[in-house]
């Protein structure tokens, strides 16, 4: 869900629409917004699961401090999605525990 008309902030400014992929699912995003914002708008709240108890984690502090929202972005693990801007064609994957490395090609 996105707020197009805000009673105080006014209308949302027009921005270029891009597409990112989250766990294989294509979602819309706007140029300049964070991965976490795009995911929230698409209704995706679970960014990863914890290593020991497999509990879901998502946006918590939203200012890059708590590292709860980290995901694997274009093969790089531990990326803080709340402070990383979405880019067209970005491949975002949720982390199961610590995740695994991929060979850098």
């Amino acid at each position: 869900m996105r707020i197009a008309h805000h009673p105080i902030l006014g209308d949302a400014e027009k921005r270029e629409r891009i597409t990112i992929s989250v766990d294989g699912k294509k979602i819309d995003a706007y140029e300049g917004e964070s991965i976490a914002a795009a995911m929230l708008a698409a209704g995706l709240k679970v960014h990863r699961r914890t290593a020991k108890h497999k509990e879901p984690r998502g946006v918590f502090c939203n200012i890059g401090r708590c590292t709860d929202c980290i995901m694997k972005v274009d093969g790089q693990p531990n990326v803080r999605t709340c402070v990383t801007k979405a880019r067209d064609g970005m491949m975002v994957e949720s982390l199961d525990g610590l995740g695994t490395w991929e060979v850098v090609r």
Partner: protein
Amino acid sequence: MGDRKNYDVIVIGGGMAGCATAYYLAKGGMDVAVIEKRAVCSGASGRNGGQVIQVEGRDELTRDLVSKKNSIAFHGKKLLGTLNDELGWDVEYRKTGGLDLAYSDEDEKIIKKVIQVQYEAGDMGVEYIGDAEVREICPILDEKVRGGKLRKDDGNANPFKITYGFALAARRLGASIHTYTAAQSILFEKHRAAGVRTDKGDYFAKHGIVNATNAWTKFLFPDFPIVPCKILAFVTEQFPIIPVTPTESVVCDREGDAGYREGQNQPYLFYGGSQVDGNIIIGGPPVYFPDGMDDHFNESITYEDFMRFKTLFGRYWSTLEGVSLLRGWGGALGFTPDALPLLGPTRYENLYMNAGYTNGMCWCPICGKLTAEYILNGGNTSLPVGFMDPERFRNEKFEWPERYNYTVLHNYIAAKHGH
């Protein structure tokens, strides 16, 4: 336990070597006390990267040194595999495989030569693998890596779990562990070591006093040539486990780096490995200031040290560029003139050495066992320890470099004993 002063054996030093010695002595029926200046595992035992590396080093390795090292470290590694049952908890020993990486033609040549030396010494556990295979098993590396030496059964262990495991198991067998008790001198009766004077009073031992203070040996026993050498470690945030770890490589600071000093720059060893929780521990020598390296017991780090390792991450393991380093610290290794420990009886009756380690994980548990065997069985040990005789340097005079770091000491040993 506090007020007893008479024991069968006193072990000075509550690190991995000391606690292992105390455990095996207690297991053999001895009434043992450990005297430790600070807390158990507070020196090098609790400050290393946890790497289990059977034969470390490059330039200083000769056929003779490789076979001597293997004669202990090989069995030390086997012993590590049995410690979970022996100590009653998981010491987190994982055989992940270990790499020595080549980043240049020069590296590749040296590593292949080292492998040749190891083969000639009968050590067939290592092989040279090319860049594609290295990057397949260690995916944090990028195309800059040229290849490396792989030993499949090297790995990692948790030094705290090992040291505390030995300490607690020794205590269950009746050993006393006196922490925050600083040994000040050895009390002699003629030529026989009879006791230890500490800041908490005198303690006496009937059957032996064991020095397991490693880098701190020079304060109690200035006649035995062990020099301390400060080395650093840093721990990162949690990452996916790197399948093959530890890795070692020899690197050099470049112009513009925090560690770069015109005219005195030298290559040094950079090491790292994943822990079971996903944190990566990396380390190497502090930034080399010839005038600043006189206190090897200073366990803090500087801003320059921090920046050096930050730079190395981006340069050599570029996948980890921008990694968060959580903490860093220093610790002191104990170097001997031939890179082998001092283990066994000394010129003084009742005084034994178990010190001089630069690579403790494979060595300290087994050497604790061998020291205990020596004392319990009147000089008989399950493995030959004669080559580690603490008196082997008695008639030699050593001119250690006045200012040194890890690299300088390795070069010194290589020049003295290497090719």
